[in-house]
C-alpha cells in the first residue's frame, strides 16, 4: 500500500476504528503516516478543547425571549406594560358595564312607553 491510499483512513484512527491489516502493515513501517496519526490526535484534542469556548451574543437573548413568550401570558408582563394591560382590561370592563346599563334602561323605558 502507498501513503495516499491510507491517508483518509488515518483520519479515522482517532475514533479507534481499526485500519485493516494492509493499512496497519503500511503504517507500522512508514514514518510519514505515523506522523500523520500523531497530528490527527493533536487535532482531535484541540477541537475537543473548544467545547467550552462560548461565542457571546447577549444582545439577541432579550429578543429571543420576547419571541418565545406566549402572547396571552399577563403574569409575565412587567412594570408599565403590565399596568397598561390591566388598565385596558379595566377600561373595557367599565365601558361594557356602562353600555349594558344604558341599554337596559332604554329597554325598560321602551316597555313602559308601550
Amino acid at each position: 500500500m502507498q501513503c495516499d491510499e491510507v491517508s483518509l483512513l488515518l483520519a479515522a484512527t482517532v475514533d479507534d476504528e481499526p485500519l485493516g491489516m494492509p493499512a496497519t502493515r503500511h503504517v507500522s513501517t512508514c514514518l510519514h503516516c505515523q506522523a500523520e496519526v500523531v497530528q490527527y490526535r493533536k487535532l482531535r484534542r484541540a477541537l475537543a478543547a473548544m467545547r467550552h469556548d462560548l461565542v457571546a451574543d447577549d444582545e439577541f437573548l432579550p429578543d429571543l425571549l420576547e419571541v418565545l413568550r406566549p402572547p396571552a401570558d399577563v403574569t409575565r408582563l412587567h412594570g408599565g406594560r403590565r399596568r397598561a394591560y390591566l388598565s385596558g382590561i379595566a377600561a373595557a370592563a367599565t365601558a361594557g358595564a356602562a353600555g349594558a346599563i344604558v341599554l337596559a334602561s332604554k329597554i325598560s323605558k321602551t316597555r313602559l312607553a308601550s
Partner: protein
Amino acid sequence: MASHDINELVEEAQGGDHRAFEELVRRTYADTYTLAFRLTGDEEDARDVVQETYLRVHKSLKKFRGDAQFGTWIHRITANCASTLLGRRSRHRHDEIDDEIQLADDHPSRDPEQRADVGELRNQLTDALRGLPPKLRAVVVLRDIYDLPHEAIADELGISETAAKVRLHRARKRLRERLYPLAGDVSHDSESEEVGRAV
C-alpha cells in the same frame, strides 16, 4: 428558579411553567448560539437557527423523556435546524459538497505548537473550520467538538452513517493539512473521486 437544576426546570417547563422554560433558555442560550455559529459561520444565520431551535424545543418539550441529556437533545435540534437552513441555501447557490474551497495557509512551514500559544492555535482552528464547506464543517463540529455519536449526526443531517463518517474524515484531513502540514501532503483533488463514490 435560579437554584433549580436543569432537570427540575425541564420538568416544570413540561408542566407548562413558562418561567421555567425561560430559565432553561437563559441557561442553554450561550451554548446553543455557539454551536449554531460554528455550524453556520454567520451571526445572522446563527440567530435564525437559535430562534428556530428554541421554537422547536418549546413545541416538543413534552416529548423529551430524559433518555439523553437535555443539552445533547438541544444540540441535535440545533444541528437539524442548521442543516435545514444550510441545505435550503445550498440549493439556491448550487453549493455542492465537492466545491473546493482552498484553505490558504499563511505559514505552512511552521508548527503551530512551536510558535503560538493556545489562543493562537484556537484562532487558527476557528478560521480553518470556517473555511470548510458547510457540510464538512457540520460533521466535524458535531463529532469532534460536541462529541455526538455518528448515528445521531447522520440522523440530524439526514445522511447515512457511512456518509457522515466519510465527511468527517475529509474534514479532519483538511484541518490537519492546514494546521499540521506534513511534507508530501496530497492535494484535495486526488481524493475527491474516491470520496464521492463512498458518499
